[in-house]
């Protein structure tokens, strides 16, 4: 220990120690010479003898320094200094190598930080590892009930499925399984809620939660108290817990919010608590701003259903809606909990099977430290594909730098030979070369972090496009940084090792001789083979990336060329929910109609339509339709869209027959409908559908006026036929669509309406005007989901858009890096063969011939690379088949484009240096030799 500190102290006085040693040696020499002179030698002879007896002072100094104990540090500093110098001496090489590495490492870090955020992050609650999600496994994949959380999914076989929502009665039964679970808590999304606080209105998503939800998750309130079991009863008063963000923006602080009144869908509630800032619920895919009890459903009712419908949710064992999670008791595993609960669960299912229409499932408890795993399932495949692609890019960059280093180390052969011959150990030289490559890769890694930071921002934009719920904040935390550091180090060692071993393996003597070629002649072939392999490898990897890109780009262009049946450009959409703000029939119709009239006065707006949902935003509604006097058919793929006058005109959907809705249609006129061509074909064949009658089965808002029945059959008359359009998603052919009038309640009352504005000019100006008009009409009504129709469409094909855009960037990177490598190695090879070329030209070879010779050599490598790469690409791209649209993994156009681009780029990369070769002056090169 003391020895260690002594050495440390010496480290601080290195200069002085060196000087002292110098003086000590000098003293020794003088003293020795003096004695030898006294014994009769001449002064010069004495000095010579003394020097001889002292031996090699360089080694002596080195050994003594070793005794001081910081030789390693000294050598490291020396290596670093040397490495820096050699990096600066080859600025182009260093810049190219660092840039390609930085791009490779940056892309990997960015993708990995997303994986880290989405795949591996636990819920921010105590002991997330004891959380389980409850569900049941069904033999036949079918999903019932209403659910806003992504907890249902098909199993590995594709035939069966896991259902993640329970009837309330089943949830109560699960809560009794307290031998394996310490708490079983439930929740379900509320959908958009109309909230009003401090006379400010807003729409926000909320969560219905069981009374033990917060206790089960272990949430410590930021202020106030959380919802308790006593708050979750049919007769409990309305209480709400709000998110930390919401408390800041709407109440100016968590403490201020406590005790404040808040209206939820126009019903009075009181804020009792605020969740901590990091808490977002149990589903990483949803960010509720407000939490209310499960039984608050009874207070809120339902615009289409009413309170009676809400009570049914708690009594009817056939309505699945509660998402259930649980805490395992200490020492209990998910498997044990599944086994212990399966019996009681299936007994219950059998007891209610008379009312339950579907099969009896097998109970299943799944480990869920990260909460509901829907988002994880959605993103895991795409993320692994992206990680694979960026992995390829990093591999290309590594091979590329290894190749450039190999070329350079061949050029440094003489330097190495000199160092070896004056006594440097091989391990010492390898260490030094590795220091150089690791320094290079660390610099690349550091620069890569900057790229990654930028890339994460870009990816968030790209992946979240058109998706309000995308709230994953990937950040560069310590495991991401550790991964980057590891990657840099590993690539540095990887691309540094081969050249280092190669360099020290050379023979000293031939390399020292004058001709730089003499020494390497013997090794030329072995040498070239490694380099050729590296080039071919790069081409193979680049082929993989390019073919994949080709497929995704083709997919996107196919998606973009789909005939939608309407014009999505210059179309602004936004949603207004007057129902939840308190408007009722029939006043709500004049409210919506009045807004439509006022919007038309906004400068730049050409026409306005409205519908109960945007034509394309990912979802559709469907209902049961039939002919009067005949038994009504179960839903057979008929989609229903409730619209107002001006919708067809604004969307630019042509009318084929009959007439459009106009201002004369309304609550008092006979119920009328428009149908699209597919509907006409399916229901009326060749007959003229105009003035024909249909029956729509609608939900009854309250069973009393409907004679106690839940449903009522409304007769409607067909007044017109529109051209076909896509509905819901653009990749699905036009379904049969029935267009209803929003004032006629043919399919139950409407609540929220989406307006479509065809406009020209600046978007921001129009949005401001819209908000002003709505605020003047009724300040309680917020304007929500302001988006263009094109953004909505992109949201539905967001994965394909992301893939196509990212892959285009990746392909560009791969191509650039591979071409830089090709250029570098070709020009180096030419430099080495200057003599040969000079002789050929002296003997009469034409310039064109020399160029062809060099180009053909490079092209053999490129062709071999492509030939190896294509079958691999064929095999691996099958993994991305599910993300393609109307394109097969072996798409000839994608492959041709990929190969063509690669070949063209390679040609350019090889052409530039070969042109230089053809300009070689034979006289100069021969004289040089």
């Amino acid at each position, binding site marked *: 220990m003391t020895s260690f500190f002594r050495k440390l102290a010496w480290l601080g006085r290195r200069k002085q120690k060196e000087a002292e040693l110098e003086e000590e040696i000098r*003293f*020794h020499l003088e*003293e020795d010479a003096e004695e030898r002179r006294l014994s009769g030698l001449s002064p010069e002879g004495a000095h010579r003898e003394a020097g001889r007896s002292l031996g090699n002072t360089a*080694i*002596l100094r080195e*050994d003594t320094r070793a*005794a001081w*104990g910081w030789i390693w540090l000294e050598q490291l500093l020396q290596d670093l200094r040397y490495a820096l110098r050699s990096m600066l001496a080859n600025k182009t090489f260093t810049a190219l190598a660092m840039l390609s590495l930085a791009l490779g490492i940056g892309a990997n870090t960015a993708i990995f930080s997303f994986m880290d955020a989405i795949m591996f992050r636990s819920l921010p609650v105590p002991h997330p590892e004891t959380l389980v999600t409850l569900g049941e496994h069904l033999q036949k994949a079918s999903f019932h009930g209403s659910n806003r959380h992504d907890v249902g999914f098909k199993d590995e076989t594709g035939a069966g499925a896991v259902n993640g929502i329970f009837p309330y009665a089943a949830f109560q039964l699960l809560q009794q399984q307290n031998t394996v679970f310490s708490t079983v808590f439930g929740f379900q999304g509320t959908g958009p809620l109309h909230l009003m606080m401090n006379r400010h209105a807003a729409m926000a998503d909320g969560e219905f939660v069981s009374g033990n939800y917060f206790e089960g998750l272990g949430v410590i309130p930021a202020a106030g108290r959380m919802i308790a079991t006593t708050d979750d009863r049919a007769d409990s008063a309305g209480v709400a817990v709000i998110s930390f963000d919401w408390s800041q923006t709407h109440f100016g602080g968590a403490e201020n919010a406590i005790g404040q009144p808040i209206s939820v869908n126009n019903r009075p509630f009181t804020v009792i608590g605020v969740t901590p800032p990091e808490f977002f619920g149990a589903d990483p895919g949803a960010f509720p701003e407000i939490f209310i009890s499960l039984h608050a459903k009874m207070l809120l009712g339902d615009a289409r259903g009413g309170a009676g419908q809400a009570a049914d949710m708690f009594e009817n064992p056939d309505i699945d809606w509660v998402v259930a999670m649980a805490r395992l008791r200490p020492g209990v595993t998910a498997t044990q909990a599944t086994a212990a609960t399966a019996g009681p669960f299936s007994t219950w299912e059998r007891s209610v099977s008379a009312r339950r229409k579907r099969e009896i499932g097998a109970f299943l408890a799944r480990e869920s430290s990260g909460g509901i795993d829907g988002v994880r399932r959605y993103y895991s495949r795409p993320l692994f594909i992206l990680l694979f692609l960026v992995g390829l890019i990093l591999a290309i960059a590594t091979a590329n730098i290894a190749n450039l280093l190999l070329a350079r180390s061949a050029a440094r052969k003489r330097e190495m030979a000199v160092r070896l011959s004056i006594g440097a150990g091989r391990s010492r030289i390898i260490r030094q070369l590795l220091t150089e490559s690791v320094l290079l890769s660390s610099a690349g890694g550091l620069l890569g972090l900057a790229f990654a930071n930028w890339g994460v921002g870009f990816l968030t934009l790209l992946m979240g496009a058109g998706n309000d719920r995308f709230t994953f904040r990937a950040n560069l935390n310590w495991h991401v940084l550790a991964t980057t550091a590891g990657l840099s180090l590993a690539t540095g060692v990887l691309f540094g090792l081969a050249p280092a071993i190669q360099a020290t393996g050379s023979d000293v003597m031939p390399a020292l001789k004058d001709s730089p070629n003499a020494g390497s002649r013997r090794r030329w072939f072995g040498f070239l083979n490694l380099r050729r392999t590296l080039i071919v490898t790069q081409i193979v990897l680049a082929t993989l990336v390019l073919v994949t890109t080709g497929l995704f780009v083709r997919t996107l262009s196919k998606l973009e060329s789909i005939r939608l049946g309407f014009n999505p450009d210059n179309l602004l959409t936004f949603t207004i929910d007057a129902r939840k703000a308190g408007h009722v029939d029939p006043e709500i119709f004049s409210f919506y109609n009045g807004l439509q009239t006022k919007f038309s006065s906004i400068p730049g707006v050409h026409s306005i339509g409205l519908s109960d949902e945007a034509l394309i935003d990912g979802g559709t509604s469907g209902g049961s339709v039939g002919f009067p006097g005949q038994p009504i058919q179960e839903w057979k793929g008929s989609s229903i869209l409730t619209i107002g006058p001006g919708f067809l005109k604004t969307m630019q959907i042509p009318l084929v027959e009959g007439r459009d809705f106009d201002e004369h249609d309304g609550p008092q006129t006979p119920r009328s409908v428009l149908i699209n061509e597919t509907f006409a074909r399916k229901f009326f064949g060749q007959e003229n559908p105009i003035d024909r009658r249909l029956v729509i089965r609608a939900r009854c808002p309250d069973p009393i006026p409907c004679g106690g029945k839940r449903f009522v059959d409304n007769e409607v008359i067909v007044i017109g036929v529109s051209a076909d359009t896509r509905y819901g998603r653009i990749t699905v052919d036009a379904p049969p669509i029935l267009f209803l009038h929003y004032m006629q309640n043919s399919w139950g009352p409407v609540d929220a309406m989406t307006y479509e504005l065809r406009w020209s000019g600046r978007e921001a100006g129009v949005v401001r005007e819209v908000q002003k008009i709505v605020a003047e009409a009724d300040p309680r009504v917020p304007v929500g989901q302001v988006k263009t129709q094109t953004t909505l469409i992109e949201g539905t094909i967001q994965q394909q858009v992301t893939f196509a855009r990212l892959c285009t960037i990746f392909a560009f990177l791969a191509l650039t890096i591979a071409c830089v490598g090709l250029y570098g190695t070709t020009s180096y090879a030419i430099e080495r063969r200057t003599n040969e070329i000079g002789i050929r030209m002296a003997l009469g070879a034409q310039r064109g011939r020399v160029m062809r010779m060099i180009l053909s050599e490079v092209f053999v490598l490129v062709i071999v690379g492509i030939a190896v790469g294509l079958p691999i690409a064929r095999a691996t791209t099958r993994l991305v088949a599910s993300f393609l649209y109307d394109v097969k993994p072996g798409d000839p156009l994608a492959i041709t484009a990929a190969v063509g681009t690669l070949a063209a780029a390679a040609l350019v990369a090889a052409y530039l240096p070969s042109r230089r070769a053809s300009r070689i002056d034979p006289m100069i090169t021969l004289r040089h030799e």
Partner: protein
Amino acid sequence: MNKPERLDLLQGTLDLLILRTLKSGTSHGQAIAKHIQQTSEDLLQVETGSLYPALHRLEAKGWISASWELSEKGKRARYYRLTALGRKQLGSEQSKWQAFSRAIGLILNSDTEGAQ
């Protein structure tokens, strides 16, 4: 002048010889080398190339300490002296060495007797 045949120093013995030399007082490097050579009747020749690294190593271990003093001829020289720790070390090294050489002697002698 016929030089006597020199003996190579056994690994680790140089440290012992340095410590022993310094037992009789402070000394500088050259004097230590000379002392070892003369005392061993020129049988042991200290390689200067290993003397200085050894001195610095012993100093790092804390067995000897160094200071700059004036030599008899008035020149600045680096003088080494045994520390308390070094003295203890010398004791144990010395007895170890003596035990070792006695053991070797016993074997060698018993061998000669056995042959007679």
